[in-house]
């Protein structure tokens, strides 16, 4: 029999940017030519060893990669089941995984001759990462941030300003991440000739979900090699928190064709799935928003409903389209944890490992807490510690009833 291309979960999207029925390019005509240019330029960059070399060099010397792979002995002991390991992306420059993607996209922007950068941000981590790379390369930077988020993430707003970015508070809607994204899209349409939009998660119109995934896949590629190097085998289960889903797809994607590796994405169940939450897969339906078709929180008329999570980085009413596809084909399992469970996970990691996690990965830790005891002691969980918690201590204190 002739050699055949093996079935793979890693060859999405198709040439039209679709992951099964999800993804695509649902944008205004004004943006379409630019989106097509971006795709062409990304194909060229992907095949250009010089582009990859510059990306790798910046990740190593500016971001501080590879990030460590860490076995968590006291957490493992406390949970009494599978061995828990963490990919330490909270140790990156700027304190989260977001910088990986920003480095890749700003290199693309400069390759395309764009001279102005815009971005949206929710918790502020992507805004800080974008402002950081703009300062590094000397490009003007405008960050759109919901007015509500500007209020609850003041330290990050100040960081962005220190880094030279202009922060534009968005008062439309509920003043959170989706409204910031709408405003960024409006700016982009009006300034398409000179502006590059650095989208922060693996969502939006094609080719964004693909290129953000590719830039974030450094997480999974490193982790896979580190696991094999350290213990000579792959983990049994990967766990990652999901808002838009960029840290999760970055960890999962390099493992998708390893049949023995199970994967668990953790959405934010907020106050509970029957109340306000941000779990698009658990509580939403497929629809079209922000350039892609994916699971969305919406009403019967297709009006988008507001997400809620204790974590500003997770309260987005959509999810990256590749996750919608991975859910539909059953390759990745998805679950959700509540605000309360995430707070418990946050404190658990502080207490057992001396690591203050961001509230986003605290959701992954809460899921690990549930699943580890059900697994054998010879089994291995690898969770993505995608951000550090310094930014969250004020809101955590408030939720714990402590006044600072």
């Amino acid at each position: 029999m002739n050699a055949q291309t093996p079935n793979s979960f890693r060859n999405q999207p198709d040439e039209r940017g679709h992951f099964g029925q999800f993804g695509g390019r649902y944008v205004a005509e004004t943006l379409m030519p630019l989106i097509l240019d971006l795709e062409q330029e990304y194909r060229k960059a992907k095949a250009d060893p010089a582009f990859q070399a510059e990306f790798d060099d910046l990740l190593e010397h500016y971001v501080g990669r590879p990030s460590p792979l860490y076995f968590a002995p006291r957490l493992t002991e406390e949970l009494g089941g599978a061995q828990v390991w963490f990919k330490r992306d909270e140790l990156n420059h700027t304190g989260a995984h977001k910088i990986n993607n920003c480095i890749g996209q700003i290199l693309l922007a400069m390759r395309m001759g764009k001279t102005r950068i815009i971005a949206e941000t929710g918790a502020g981590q992507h805004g800080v990462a974008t402002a950081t790379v703009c300062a590094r390369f000397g490009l003007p930077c405008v960050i759109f941030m919901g007015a509500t988020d500007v209020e609850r993430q003041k330290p990050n707003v100040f960081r962005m300003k220190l880094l030279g970015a202009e922060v534009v508070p968005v008062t439309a809607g509920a003043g959170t991440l989706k409204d910031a994204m709408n405003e960024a899209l409006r700016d982009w349409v009006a300034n398409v000739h000179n502006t590059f939009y650095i989208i922060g998660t693996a969502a939006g119109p094609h080719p964004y979900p693909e290129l953000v995934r590719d830039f974030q896949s450094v997480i999974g590629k490193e982790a896979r090699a580190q696991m094999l190097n350290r213990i000579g085998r792959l983990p049994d289960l990967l766990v990652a928190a999901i808002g838009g889903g960029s840290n999760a797809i970055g960890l999962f994607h390099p493992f998708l064709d390893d049949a023995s590796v199970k994967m668990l994405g953790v959405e934010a169940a907020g106050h509970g799935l029957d109340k306000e939450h941000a779990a698009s897969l658990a509580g939403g339906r497929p629809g079209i928003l922000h350039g892609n078709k994916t699971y969305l929180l919406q009403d019967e008329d297709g009006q988008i409903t507001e997400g809620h999570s204790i974590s500003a980085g997770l309260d987005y009413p959509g999810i990256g389209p590749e996750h919608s596809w991975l859910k539909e084909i059953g390759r990745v399992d998805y679950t959700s944890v509540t605000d309360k469970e995430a707070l418990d996970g946050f404190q658990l990691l502080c207490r057992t490992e001396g690591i203050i996690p961001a509230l986003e990965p605290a959701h992954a830790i809460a899921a690990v807490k549930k699943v580890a005891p059900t697994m054998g002691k010879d089994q291995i969980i690898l969770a993505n510690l995608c951000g550090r918690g310094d930014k969250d201590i004020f809101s955590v204190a408030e939720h714990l009833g402590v006044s600072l």
Partner: protein
Amino acid sequence: MSRLSNAFAKGRPALVTFVTGGDPTPDATASILDALVEGGADVIELGMPFTDPMADGPAIQLANLRSLGAGTKTADILRIASEFRARHPEVPLVLMGYANPMTIRGADWFAAECVKAGVDGVICVDIPPEEDPELGPALRTAGVSLIRLATPTTDHARLPAVLEGSSGFLYYVSVAGITGMQQAAQASIDEAVARIKASAAIPVAVGFGVRTPEQAEAIAKVADGVVVGSALVDLVAKHGADAAGPVKELTAALAAAVHSARKGAL
């Protein structure tokens, strides 16, 4: 001939007017639509409200929020459309909005509802030709015009793809930007309309940023139609349920300017 093609075959440029359905309330929209017709509008665009109107400037964003805040549902928009059709059998009516409310129950469902309500055409802001299968085939099968947008970034190579499968008229967005903001320089509009009309077998209407009779008249000298939205929506914002009078007044001034734009030249 269809209602839409009739509207562009009166031997003069057409005035196309936009208001958001359900703004300020579903019940108030009928009188505003009637005012547009009485003022002399040739084509009526009825906006379907959406929570996330990414292509719209502040005026129409707020109109969307007022409408949704008043409890407007898709069923209300379709009812407003069919009641309009009963009152105005000959005036073409176009629904304009975003992909998600249009496709959430399936494109076939939406196309069938358009036919039932007497809707002549649909403008969907965020379905470019590349995603045509999402809505285009259902509308064409049902005999509802799919009206596409062309923009300053739609170059010569891309224009055929935009025209393919579109009908009724082509909506030329004169500025790279959102609704209701600055107007493009007249020279660039003249150039673009001439370029597009050379390729398009359907009428070309120009909109985005057109607020005054003077601007409308200048565009009507070269285009088959002129679209005015935000300036009318601003009147609805200001006068609420009593907007019919001011809306009719502005529409009449716009219609006079557009309809007579080429008289001197002929």
